[in-house]
């Protein structure tokens, strides 16, 4: 049955529920050929199909079920170092050619019907998706997923005190992508990300505290069924209980011990972004000409990779069709390399690292982190805490941000004073403030308990799935904002 026109002035989206397979080759080659014939030095087409579901449980009810699906394409055209990018929901040949024409026009190029402009056709399809075709069907159905969430909120009720609100949330994001470029790149993949979280708001008179935990994985269809809801709820309730009556931390400069797992968010935000070639292009990283030079304490080795099994930032290929790598960014304090995508390589000379990533077809890929972590060191966590006379232990970190000149700012969700090498009373309202350039040399001790945690990273090419991580680390001095 043909679709009737609902949007007249805009290209109509044409959704085929069929997978992206070899039948797309002629259409893609026609687009790439047309782009090259017009004078583009490189043309790339990114096709995407998505299927999302979000669930919310509050108290002991499912209160929101939000399915969403869609298809789209992003077409990027390079002329030398310049590029134009157009996204569309219309995947018809005409729709793609219209988008290509717009992208060409941005670079002062006009469509040309003759020739292939040096385009020699797409290479053999590298099909990372072939073994993943059954993943979507293997994910838990609504019945199982809602039951697991309600189990989580019920466990909060079991383990919590002074509870005012309990929430559980689950998101499943399935994405099929196909990348075709005029350099012959032709690849396909299926990605599956699932995350589940619990949140609790506790209140006792004027005292209030809220705590949340989120767990995420990739490429494991049945992961929700194996989620340890009991452990999640127990940890969350203990944290909320500790923070409910906590005093505000006193502002000042302290030695700080940051816990493992999500403590790595500071390295991700404050340093990792500065090692992306997008920052080199903008001129906003202080490390642009520091490869081979010390930028951190000798205790620090930092890695970004896309290979860890099941980790939230792992990929079979990046959004430019390149297989991910394991990249040592900093080794014993020495800057080794930057993360680079296709445009980054073109404009900065840093070789691609399989780090070209984007939220969706509506964004051009950019150099972005995957699983980023500080490597384990030789110490025990107790060694780190024992070395601090008076300081702060940050057991759980919240979100934060980095300003355009490199200052960072992170909220501490669960903190404790350290007094004479021992953990003391809980404190709230702490914010860690500093600059990567100044703080990296002060990371003087790394423990032996590296762990990763799932997260989301928002930047120039949208919000993407990442992993942050570290062992316990000690920062000799950092400004702590408080009251």
């Amino acid at each position: 049955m043909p679709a009737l026109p609902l949007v007249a002035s805009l290209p109509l989206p044409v959704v085929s529920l069929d997978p992206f397979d070899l039948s797309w080759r002629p259409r893609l080659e026609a687009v790439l050929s047309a782009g090259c014939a017009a004078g583009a030095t490189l043309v790339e087409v990114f096709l995407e199909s998505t299927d999302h579901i979000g669930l919310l449980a509050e108290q002991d009810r499912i209160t929101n079920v939000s399915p969403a699906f869609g298809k789209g394409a992003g077409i990027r055209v390079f002329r030398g170092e310049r590029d134009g990018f157009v996204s569309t929901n219309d995947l018809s040949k005409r729709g793609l050619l219209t988008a290509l024409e717009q992208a060409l026009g941005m670079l002062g190029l006009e469509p040309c019907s003759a020739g292939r402009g040096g385009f020699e056709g797409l290479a053999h399809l590298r099909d990372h998706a072939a073994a993943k075709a059954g993943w979507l069907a293997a994910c838990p159905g609504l019945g199982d997923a809602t039951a697991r969430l309600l189990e989580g909120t019920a466990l909060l009720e079991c383990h919590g005190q002074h509870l005012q609100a309990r929430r559980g949330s689950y998101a499943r994001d399935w994405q099929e992508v196909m990348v075709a470029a005029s350099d012959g790149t032709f690849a396909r993949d299926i990605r599956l990300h699932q995350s589940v979280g619990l949140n609790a708001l506790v209140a006792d008179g004027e005292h209030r505290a809220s705590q949340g935990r989120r767990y995420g994985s990739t490429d494991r269809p049945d992961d929700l069924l194996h989620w340890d809801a009991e452990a999640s709820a127990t940890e969350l309730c203990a944290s909320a209980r500790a923070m409910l009556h906590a005093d505000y931390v006193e502002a000042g400069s302290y030695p700080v011990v940051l816990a493992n797992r999500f403590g790595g968010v500071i390295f991700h935000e404050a340093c990792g972004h500065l090692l992306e070639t997008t920052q080199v292009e903008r001129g906003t990283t202080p490390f642009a000409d520091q490869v081979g030079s010390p930028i951190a304490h000798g205790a620090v080795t930092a890695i970004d990779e896309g290979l860890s099994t099941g980790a939230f930032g792992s990929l079979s290929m990046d959004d430019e069709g390149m297989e991910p790598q394991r990249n040592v960014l900093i080794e014993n304090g020495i800057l080794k390399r930057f993360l680079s995508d296709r445009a980054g390589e073109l404009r900065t000379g840093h070789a691609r690292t399989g780090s070209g990533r984007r939220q969706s077809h509506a964004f051009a890929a950019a150099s972005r982190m995957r699983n980023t972590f500080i490597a384990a060191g030789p110490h025990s966590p107790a060694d780190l805490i024992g070395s601090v006379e008076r300081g702060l232990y940050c057991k759980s970190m919240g979100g934060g941000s980095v300003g355009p000149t490199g200052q960072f700012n992170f909220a501490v969700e669960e903190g404790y004073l350290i007094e004479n090498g021992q953990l003391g009373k809980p404190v709230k309202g702490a914010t860690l403030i500093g600059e990567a350039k100044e703080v990296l040399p002060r990371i003087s001790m790394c423990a032996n308990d590296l762990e990763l945690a799932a997260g989301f990273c928002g930047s120039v090419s949208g919000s993407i799935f990442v992993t942050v991580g570290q062992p316990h680390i000690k920062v000799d001095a950092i400004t702590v904002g408080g009251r």
Partner: protein
Amino acid sequence: MTVTDTAILESPVQGLDASKLAGQLERLAAELGIRRWDLGAACSTDTSVQVDRGEPKQLKGAQRSSITVRVWNADGLVGITSTSDLSAAGLARALAGAQEASAYGNADDTPTFSPLATAPLETLDQPLREPVGILSLLATLQEAERDLLSRHVAISTVPYNGLAQRSSERIYLNSDGACRQQRLSTASLYLYARAEEAGRKPRSSGAVRLAYGAGLLDVAGCIDEAAERTISHLDYAPIDTGRYPCVFSPEAFLDLIGAFSSLFNARSVLDGVSLSQRESIGEQLAVPFLSIHDNGLHPGNIGASSFDGEGTPVHRLALVDGGVLKHFLHSEATARAFGVAPTGHAGLGAKVSVGTNWLEIGPGDSAGGASGLDRHKADGVVWIESLSALHAGVKASQGSFSLPFDGWLIQGGEARSIEAATVAGDIRAVLKGLIGFEGPAKITPDGLCPHVWVEGLSITGDA
């Protein structure tokens, strides 16, 4: 398997065709046995440019479409599905998905159609502007960047910049015959410059402008403001940690109130995550000379909508008057729970979100507060120009905040930029600790507000 195009037919009609969409939905719903449904749809075309030291950095174009359908099943439970696919196949799949989701609808809190979904709408004065060519956008931004770079030798780059334009349309329809439709054209310009002097840290600041079309943007004003702000931060010094009286710029105070808007949000109240409770209406929330209204229809609100996600008309609503909490923001469902009318602040969903439109903050009709306040003659006062990291530093359900800011310390009437610092406090204490307002209210992208003086807040300097 072959790739096939479903039919794409041309039509001279511009934008979304509401009646065709309604007819399509009606037919598909009937096939699936769905009697009650509503829908929100939107489509847009965007073009945007960024530049880097005279060269085009990124040129982008996008055609987007999206639709959210909501259906009620035989038990009266609600399910939704969203998609970017407006073809018949996509709509059919969306309806089926919504029907499946409705089996998990919340029987305790089921939305229904807004009783105001067919009420008359205010007419908005929103000129529609044709988009200009992307190369024209590029030339404008290149010139703006060149001008900004020439304003001071220390301004070396404008690392964050963009000029964008959008033509958009949105629709609300329901099976009872409601039909809302609005078209809009908007444009935006942002320029954030980076300046650095020898041996000193880089400094950054900028400005934003919105308009109904690229040709209507106040480009010169944006350049002037970005240059002035950036240059004003070149001479900086650390600040001692301590408590200071603070003057919030209109933008900063609107950001702070916006971050704590769950105080006024009936959905948050019902969910138990607001500092307010059902019985808080009528309580003294702030100093008696503070008024806060939500007015999405204000002429200064570029991109205003005349109806919300449920089709309810948008109108001006008093949230705080004379310091007293007057009304909450409502969707249809929360309004029903409170026994009042929806206020035009709803999204569209199985659980409907509620949010502010555009805030007006000031003394309202109330008198009081310190008079003659002048930050340019102050001493020992922190002037907060802009707040950052609100997503991380605001604990809305607890009332506390700890936020990095850009600003100046004023001593003896002289303002000197603060190197780096955070401001921390409790929103309830802020609202009851207002000293007064300075100067006329300023129109910003987020609302209308004058400079606001607040009693001593905790400032942590990063030295």
